[in-house]
C-alpha cells in the first residue's frame, strides 16, 4: 500500500502520517531526508529521533539514493519528505540534476520492499512568485514527482490545517 500526503507548510502532514501508521509496531521505519544544517538542527533531530522511538519508529537518515537503505521485507516506511529529497538529489555540488526519473525508480524499489509506504510531500508551486531558474526547475520537478507518485499511490490525501482531505482512494482503517 502506498499513501501520498501533500499540503503546505505546518499543515499537520507529519502527525497525520504518524497516525496512519500508529497500529504498526514492528519494522516501522522513519526515513528522514532532511540534511541537518547548524547545531540547532542536530539538537532538533536527536530530540525528534527520541520522540519517534517512543512511537516505535526506527529512524534512518538518508539524504539521497533512498534505494540504499537496508530494511527487512514487509516493512512500513514513512518517508519525510519529498521536498528535501528532491532538493538533495537536484542540487549537488555545482550542477543541477533533474531528479524525477531517479526518485521514481527508487520509490518503486522501496514500494516493493514495503507493505506500507507513506510519503510526505509539499505543495510548493502556489505562491505565484517567479524565482531564479534553479528554483523554477525545482518547482517543476516537485510537481512532476507529485503527479507521478499520486498515480502510483493507492491513496492521496491533502492535509489542510490538520484535516485530511482524501483526493484519491480511501484512508485504510
Amino acid at each position, binding site marked *: 500500500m502506498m499513501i501520498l500526503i501533500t*499540503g503546505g507548510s505546518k*499543515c499537520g502532514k507529519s502527525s497525520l502520517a504518524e497516525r496512519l501508521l500508529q497500529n504498526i509496531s514492528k519494522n516501522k521505519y522513519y526515513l528522514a531526508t532532511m540534511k541537518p544544517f547548524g547545531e540547532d538542527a542536530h539538537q532538533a533531530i536527536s530530540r525528534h529521533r527520541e520522540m519517534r522511538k517512543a512511537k516505535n519508529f526506527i529512524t534512518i537518515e538518508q539524504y539521497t539514493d533512498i534505494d540504499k537503505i537496508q530494511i527487512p521485507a514487509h516493512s512500513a516506511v514513512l518517508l519525510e519528505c519529498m521536498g528535501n529529497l528532491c532538493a538533495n538529489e537536484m542540487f549537488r555540488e555545482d550542477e543541477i540534476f533533474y531528479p524525477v526519473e531517479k526518485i521514481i525508480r527508487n520509490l518503486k524499489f522501496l514500494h516493493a520492499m514495503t507493505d506500507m509506504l507513506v510519503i510526505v510531500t509539499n505543495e510548493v*508551486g*502556489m505562491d505565484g512568485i517567479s524565482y531564479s531558474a534553479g528554483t523554477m526547475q525545482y518547482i517543476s520537478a516537485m510537481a512532476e514527482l507529485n503527479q507521478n507518485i499520486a498515480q502510483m499511490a493507492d491513496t492521496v490525501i491533502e492535509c489542510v*490545517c490538520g484535516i485530511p482531505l482524501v483526493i484519491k482512494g480511501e484512508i485504510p482503517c
Partner: protein
Amino acid sequence: MILVIGGAHAGKTEFVKKHFNLSESDILDASENQNFQNAKCIRNYHILIQKLCEENADPLAFTERLMQENPDCIVITNEIGCGIVPIDKSERLWREACGKSSCLLAERAEKVIRMLCGIPAVIKGKCL
C-alpha cells in the same frame, strides 16, 4: 468557533457576511485592530500573526487566548504555506506560525470551511 480558510481573495469574507448575515461593522479587521474580545468575526488573522511575530509575541499563545475569551468567534485566515520555503527567517517563521495556528484553531473549531473559487467546502463539522 468557526474557521474559514482559503487563498487570498477566494471569497471568504463575502461568504461569511452572506451566510452568517453579518455587516461590515460585525467584522474586525485583525490587520488594523487586535481587540478581538467582542468581535463576531475576525478577518486577516494571518496578518495579525505576522504582527505578533514582528513583536516577538507568541502567536500560538495569542490564538489560545482568542479561543478562550471569544469561543464563538468566526475566524477568517489565508492559507499561505503552499509555496517555496522563504529564505528570510522572519518570513519563514511567520509562515510556520500561520500553519500551526490554523491547525490549533481547526482542532477546536466545531466547523472548518475552506473556500476555493468562491465555493465553500465544509471540511470539518456538519454541512452548511
